């Protein structure tokens, strides 16, 4: 029964990606891409990776969808091209070769291979955390997480540069007279903040953590921005910038300060507060970065007005 379910997911994933390639309009392609993200989240759930599933559903299906829709609104031309898209032959051949190589190497993995999970399990006492995924992200491989925060920060700086803006505040309009919009914000916002905090707290011992919590909080921010709620503009420009680089700079301070008492970067004293500090800073930074990316998107309401 489970095998049938897995096969259906696999077939749907391949089918949807084919349809994305051959989609006639941009809008159709975006909707299919969001669907693809949801199916991918389902696949990760079936692979016992709830962490990636939450991140995929929130980022791949949610926030990327908003970004793509915004971009579509900005580049929309009066007539949609009806022509069939041809897939370049070189690209198709290369993809097929890649699939064969990946498939072959996946078949070469012995069935009782447990990867690095045993190593991680043995090293768990060193981290002072209870959940292995969080321990890997924030302790064993914190270098990767640090650079990921750097990537997000660079993306925001890049978007601001391209859009020739130096300020992210003030891009929200005052709340429009939309009773349903105000009502849904009033109901959903507390829930989103609670769920964000819950995911962050959950990260210490169960699937969840900084990234998922940050994305949920960013979702709340995007909702406020889309509704033109003025509360995001309360943050001054300097505090907005401070929050943008909070996560990255916390890691930087940790990396630099650890050189004083250890001969390796990014080692930390066995205090849970240290890890929690990083996690909270990363969550806030991720949320603010993602909101900034969407606020500075081409179809921003400010551009329409001016």
């Amino acid at each position, binding site marked *: 029964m489970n095998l049938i379910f897995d096969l259906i997911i696999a077939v749907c994933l391949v089918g949807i990606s084919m349809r994305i390639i051959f989609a006639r309009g941009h809008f159709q392609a975006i909707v299919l891409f969001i669907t693809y993200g949801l199916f991918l989240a389902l696949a990760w759930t079936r692979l016992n990776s709830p962490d990636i599933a939450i991140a995929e559903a929130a980022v791949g299906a949610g926030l990327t969808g908003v970004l793509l829709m915004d971009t579509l609104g900005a580049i929309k031309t009066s007539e949609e091209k009806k022509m069939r898209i041809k897939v370049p032959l070189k690209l198709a051949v290369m993809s097929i070769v890649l699939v064969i190589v990946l498939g072959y190497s996946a078949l070469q993995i012995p069935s009782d291979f447990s990867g690095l999970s045993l190593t991680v399990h043995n090293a768990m006492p060193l981290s002072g955390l209870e959940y292995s995924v969080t321990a890997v992200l924030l302790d064993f491989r914190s270098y990767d997480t640090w650079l990921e925060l750097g990537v997000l920060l660079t993306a925001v700086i890049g978007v601001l540069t391209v859009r020739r803006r130096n300020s992210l505040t003030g891009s929200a309009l005052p709340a429009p007279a939309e009773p*349903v*919009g105000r*009502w*849904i914000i009033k*109901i*959903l916002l507390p*829930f989103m903040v609670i769920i964000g905090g819950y995911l962050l707290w959950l990260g210490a011992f169960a699937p969840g953590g900084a990234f998922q919590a940050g994305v949920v909080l960013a979702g709340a921010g995007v909702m406020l921005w889309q509704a033109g709620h003025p509360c995001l503009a309360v943050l001054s420009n300097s505090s907005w910038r401070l929050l943008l680089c909070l996560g990255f700079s916390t890691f930087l301070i940790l990396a630099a300060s650890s050189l004083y008492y250890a001969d390796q970067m990014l080692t930390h004293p066995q205090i849970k507060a240290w890890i929690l500090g990083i996690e909270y800073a990363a969550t806030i930074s991720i949320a603010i970065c993602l909101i900034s990316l969407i606020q500075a998107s081409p179809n921003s309401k400010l551009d329409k007005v001016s």
Partner: protein
Amino acid sequence: MNLFEILSIIFCLCGGFFFLGGTVGLIRFPDTYSRLHALTKADNLGLGFIVLGLIMVSSSMPEIVKLILIWLLALIGSSSACYFIGNHMHQSNKPQSIQDESDF
């Protein structure tokens, strides 16, 4: 198989039926308004039945509360989204919608 499991299966099948109906409506109905009707009404009922079915077999109280919360949030979300899409349609092509109304 006890009573709760049988009830759970029945409720989940009911939910699946409503999802199927909603999808058929979404594909077959002629205009945006009736499609919205099919989508939101059927999906709310479908999700409601599936949540009811899962509550029958869930083991702990927090799980039940979370399931009900998911349903309530989906209700709020889908009805509001329905309003937004419908309102946008109404604002963007008013002459068209008046034409539609006079057809009834």
